[in-house]
């Protein structure tokens, strides 16, 4: 069968279209189907890792249900980042954050994504920047000391424990002083 659009090539795609109850048979070649927009081909980009990831992010129940009503609902309460104006819908599409504030803006929706991408992890457990994280460094240090303190008390090594307790006090005082200034 010949393609009904170009009337040159062999028609390889056959389908029927129903508009206002009127049924129409369409026979076209691949090129015309693409040119006339009968079919859309996913571009090369569709295969990149990021698109795959973006697909993964489409997890929440509401957007899974494609009913018009639900679409309206999600649109209405779509989160928008006050800093870069990226919406959560956009984020799910591109799979990238627009700015650091997006992490806060979308925070209620992010943990499932992180769990998926990072084998169930949601909390950072690595390096802390020196300047920006100086308070955090103190906090972590206090936590470590507290653990040591518990351990020493358990073993009834009270003299050692007192030393650690004083260290905790000193660090806490430093921290409070730092927060006030």
């Amino acid at each position: 069968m010949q393609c009904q659009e170009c009337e040159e090539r062999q028609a390889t795609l056959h389908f029927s279209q129903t508009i206002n109850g009127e049924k129409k048979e369409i026979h076209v070649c691949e090129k015309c189907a693409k040119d006339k927009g009968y079919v859309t081909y996913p571009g090369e980009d569709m295969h990149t890792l990021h698109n795959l990831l973006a697909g993964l992010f489409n997890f929440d129940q509401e957007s899974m249900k494609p009913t018009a009503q639900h679409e309206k609902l999600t649109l209405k309460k779509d989160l928008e980042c006050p800093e870069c104006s990226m919406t959560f819908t956009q984020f799910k599409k591109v799979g990238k954050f627009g700015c650091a504030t997006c992490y806060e803006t979308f925070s209620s929706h992010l943990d499932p994504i992180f769990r998926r991408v990072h084998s169930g992890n949601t909390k950072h457990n690595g390096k802390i920047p020196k300047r920006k994280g100086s308070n955090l460094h103190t906090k972590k240090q206090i936590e470590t000391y507290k653990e040591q303190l518990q351990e020493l008390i358990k073993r009834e090594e009270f003299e050692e424990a007192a030393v650690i307790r004083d260290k905790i006090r000193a660090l806490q005082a430093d921290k409070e002083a730092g927060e006030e200034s």
Partner: protein
Amino acid sequence: MRLEDFMNKSISSWMREEGPHSDIVLSSRIRLARNFSDETFPMLASEEQLERIRETIETNYGNQTFQSYKNFSYVSMSDLTAVGKSVLIEKHLISPHLIKKQKRGSGVLISENEQVSMMVNEEDHLRIQLYFPGFQLHEALKEANAVDDWIESKIDYAFDETKGYLTACPTNVGTGMRASVMMHLPALTITKQLNRMVPAINQLGLVVRGIYGEGSGAVGNVFQISNQITLGKSETDIVEDLNSVVHQLVERERHTRSELMNNSKIQVEDRVFRSYGVLEHSRLIGSQEASTCISNVRLGIDLGIIKDVSQNILNELMVLTQPGCLQQYAKSALKPHERDQLRADIIRERLQLEN
């Protein structure tokens, strides 16, 4: 220009040094993704923001020296020709992404020995990268941390207590670190063992891919193995996990090589010498064939089948025979068949240097 001089210019000096296990592990790399705390990520940033980021980096770190990394120079992408850009990609100093999505103010800061490079305004504001020859992940991590602290001394990073370093892509959040090693695994590839090992490696949160990163196929039996997970594990733990897998792969590769020599010596020799012949005598050679032959010859050198040719030949020719490098050598754009001719010429000439 003489080939020797061109080689000296084209091959990063760190690459010439020998590292531990460098018969199998070509290089170790640490990459850190970092962002400025108060600027929009490059994808949505305005031109002024992008320029501001570039300027901060260029003025604070351009022409600076940090410890053994001397004279960082800033190269702006807009100042480079297409060939110049592909040379940087082939030397792994920038990613293809930096070119594909070229933004205003995008560029790279490179140390004189090309061991450290920092991409500016790629997917993140900063991508710090550090290479070591051979298998030296712990050293690379230590040095990368030092460079990171140096940068942080003047820049506020986007960092969150629970989420760690904030990055444009959720796959990098946390440590923002990608640790990777480049491995030459001909024996595991010939015996089809690697394919079977990949699923197990993946289960440990590690990925195996071709040498030009995401989406690239393996060329010349060279593979890149890196961590996928960046959140929840410390940098040291990630490196430790990768380390142990790489160690196992090195052992397996060595074991398989000696098995091949014990059981199929003549076949291995045949493969090696045929490839050597092709490299020594061909007048036209495509990059695929060249990589395969170079890999076989390197295996021959490692196994002592070919003597008097240096091990470094694989690393060198892998870079030199890439399209960008060839065109830079020719100082003009080349059609594919012209490249094949020049590639064959360069390989022959390089082999002659040995004699």
